């Protein structure tokens, strides 16, 4: 009796070891998956951000700054097993690609532009217009402000140039709504009795918020010297955005049916 009890304790120990080790392995697995996904998303975001900056610079014929934010879900033990953990990847790039005077053809006031993008949503609210601006003004990015500029020899620009606002605050709210539905349908059809399982899951990942922008109205009238200019900020428009992505699994209707033998055949 004593020997049997000892053997049962040994069995229990093996199960406990397996349980503890299993949890450690799954945790390690989760972190590795999470790390791999994070790395991939960061790389992709950096590359896409630069390409978008290049594209915007070409279209605007000017210097542009482009910021791209990507919201994705990654495997993690810190979140629901199916839902995953929200990841945010961010990258900014600046590109100058211009021929002749910056901006649209015929423009005398356009100089540089700034763009923000959350997933597939452009955050745009250009509030100052230039005579040469055409079409959709939101395609000119963040708010612009007129400002005198000075060249290296101290000469003043002929016109006040449009300078893009800079973002100093981003109040963002991210909401992830996960829904799972599993149905089991039993058919008592005499010709084809079966049990059908139907499972669907969806994840709605929404990011909404407001970015606050301001202009540095201080001008350096003698860029040739090394004296720093004290920034003087003026509030610009706050811009709201709302980006939403819904993931559905399976993407098409997914179910599987198990033939059910009633024993009547």
């Amino acid at each position, binding site marked *: 009796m004593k*020997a049997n009890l*000892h*053997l049962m304790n*040994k*069995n229990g120990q*093996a199960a406990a*070891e*397996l349980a503890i*080790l299993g949890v450690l*392995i799954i945790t390690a*697995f989760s972190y*590795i*998956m999470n790390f*791999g*996904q994070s*790395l*991939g998303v960061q*790389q*992709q975001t950096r*590359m*896409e951000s630069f*390409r*978008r900056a*290049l*594209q915007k610079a*070409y*279209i605007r*014929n000017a210097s542009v700054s482009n910021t791209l934010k990507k919201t994705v879900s990654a495997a993690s033990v810190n979140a629901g097993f199916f839902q995953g953990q929200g990841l945010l990847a961010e990258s900014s790039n600046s590109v100058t*690609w*211009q*021929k*002749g005077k910056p*901006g*649209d*053809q015929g423009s005398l006031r356009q100089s540089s532009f700034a763009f923000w993008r959350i997933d597939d949503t452009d955050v745009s609210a250009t509030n100052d217009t230039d005579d040469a601006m055409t079409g959709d003004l939101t395609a000119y990015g963040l708010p612009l402000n007129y400002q005198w500029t000075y060249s290296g020899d101290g000469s003043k620009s002929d016109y006040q140039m449009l300078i893009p606002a800079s973002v100093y605050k981003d109040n963002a709210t991210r909401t992830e709504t996960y829904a799972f539905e599993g149905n089991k349908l039993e058919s008592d059809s005499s010709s084809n009795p079966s049990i059908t399982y139907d499972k669907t899951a969806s994840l709605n990942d929404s990011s909404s918020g407001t970015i606050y922008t301001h202009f540095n109205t201080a001008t350096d009238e003698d860029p040739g010297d090394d004296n720093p200019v004290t920034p003087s900020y003026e509030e610009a428009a706050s811009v709201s955005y709302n980006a939403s992505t819904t993931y559905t699994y399976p993407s098409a209707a997914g179910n599987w049916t198990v033939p059910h033998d009633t024993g009547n055949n």
Partner: protein
Amino acid sequence: MSKKNRTKNRAQSILDFVLIFGILLTFIIGLTRIWVWFNANYAKRNVDYQNTRLAAGQANNSHLSSLSYSDDVLNLDDNWVFKGQTSESVGTPPQAGYSAIDALSGSGNSGTAAVCSSGQSAATALRTEADNMDGEADNLDDFLSWAGSDALEWLFELIGVDIDGMEDARDSLWCNACYIREKAAAIETAACGSSSVATPSPTCCSRDYCSGQSCCTSSTSTSN
């Protein structure tokens, strides 16, 4: 503890050992393969990016709708995880001299959307000029077709009309009109990636009327 129980315990331990290490090994192999998949995607993304680098840097109207790069991950399927078989290649990285670069169609080497519009305007103005020169040359040619005949040439020369000089002027106008069309096509191609009007073929300087013309003998003359 009896010898029999000790043997049972030892067997139990060996079973546990085999079981746990079997599970561990399988798990680690699967995990390693998924890890390789992450690495392969990293490489593929880089190869795709590098292969489209020159295309993205060219002045091309496709920029208005395309980044010439998109994230296209490798397919992670059962064969990859359980059999260790890759689903597809990560692609070929750029070779020396960038011979492997798959550029977008169009060959513009500089310019922007604004420059394209400007280039088209300049090309149109040049073509109008070329049309006028061709018109003048055709008028001269019509005149020379009867005035330059053997029967009348001596008569015109007698009254001081330089028939040979007029033929030279006609050829010069034709040649320069052709040369201007070449330049217009070159300007438009450089600005926009392609020309809306085809480059004259055969090239101007290979034509008879351009023989000895200054635009073809100058070191700065160009032709496509």
